[in-house]
């Protein structure tokens, strides 16, 4: 298991814990959590903050009949068997396998079986319909050098297979790029295999799309 060196920023973890991230971004974080015990703990801490805030919210009493209804429901409630407690161990995604959170969005088990679409030679992608924001898989050919670009604050990237290096270091499977506009970088995919990434973009703001940005240097959009 390779060590993970690059993690989401605090505001991204808090947004996830609060339920405030659009689905496209939340899914990128959720997939990272499947790789990263450290960040699972960070999410629990952020949820503890949510719990503290919950204790502190100005109470809004329920209708008069609700308390009686709850008391009655306690007698009807089935005992949940302890078997349910058996942990559904979070298996770290095996290399080449699609993370379980993405399975409902694709119809295959393996990256190589996906219906990739070529953007330019050596670079393919696959848009995923998650219903909120823009989510896509990117498949970068081994050794390929990406154009120099910056990221926007509403964009998240997770390496799922292979790796790349840039000015910030080496990014391997599980590593998370939570970059803002202050970083300009030029990733180079590792030479031994294709690099597959998951990218999420919150398109609430009227920014130009992810592919357009990557494509600009190639085709002069």
């Amino acid at each position, binding site marked *: 298991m390779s060590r993970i060196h690059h993690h989401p920023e605090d505001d991204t973890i808090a947004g996830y814990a609060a*339920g405030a991230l659009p689905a496209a971004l939340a899914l990128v974080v959720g997939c990272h959590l499947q790789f990263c015990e450290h960040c699972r*703990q960070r999410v629990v801490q952020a949820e503890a903050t949510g*719990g*503290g805030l*919950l204790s502190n919210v100005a109470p809004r*009493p329920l209708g008069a009949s609700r308390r009686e209804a709850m008391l009655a429901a306690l007698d009807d409630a089935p005992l949940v068997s302890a078997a349910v407690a058996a942990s559904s161990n*979070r298996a770290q995604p095996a290399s080449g396998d699609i993370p379980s959170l993405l399975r409902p969005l694709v119809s295959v088990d393996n990256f190589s079986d996906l219906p990739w679409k070529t953007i330019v030679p050596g670079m393919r992608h696959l848009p995923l319909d998650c*219903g909120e924001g823009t989510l896509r898989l990117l498949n970068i050919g081994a050794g390929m050098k990406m154009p120099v670009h910056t990221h926007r604050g509403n964009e998240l990237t997770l390496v799922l297979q292979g790796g790349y290096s840039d000015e910030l270091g080496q990014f391997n499977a599980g590593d998370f790029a939570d970059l803002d506009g202050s970083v300009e970088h030029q990733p180079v995919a590792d030479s031994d295999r294709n690099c597959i990434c998951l990218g999420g973009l919150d398109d609430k703001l009227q920014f130009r799309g992810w592919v357009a940005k990557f494509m600009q240097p190639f085709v002069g959009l």
Partner: protein
Amino acid sequence: MAEDGTAQQSGAYWASCMQRVADDRDKASFMLLYDYFSPRVNAYLVGQGVDAAGAEDLTQEALLALWNKAHLYNPEKAAVSTWLFRVARNLWIDKLRKQRGAAYESDEGLAEVAVVSNDYGEADGDRLQAVLETLPRNQAQVVYKSYYEGKSHSEIAQETGMPLGSVKSSLRLAIKAFRQHFGGDVV
């Protein structure tokens, strides 16, 4: 009805109530939890945009989950308020933002949350509120809109006119302040 005039109880107190619910199916202990937390869960859900009747239905559902799954609760791992926050969050997401649900582990995962330092895990409302009140207005506002209204960073930027980068850095600074006060060593 809830005795909201009483002093806020500690996380340890609520954990002991949960323990009695788990061990003895003790209704009196459960109703103490119900009276305290249900108006708060209800307020949280209304803040997220759930309509009044729907919020009461979801509140009942969240508290009933507390009763039904009490045996899964581990006071070493999370405060009652943290557990309820997670349940309530998942419920409103399921109702209003179903797409986001795919990004979270199922409820069964509640039993196996990671161990957190007790200092932070039992951060109670009073202490958090004290920290919130020391924060600059824009930081408190971003925390409020994220946690109580479920607004994305972009939506907060649109609503407040703050640049997106400022929304993010404000939230980071607020979290840093929480961490300094509660001594969390993991984040």
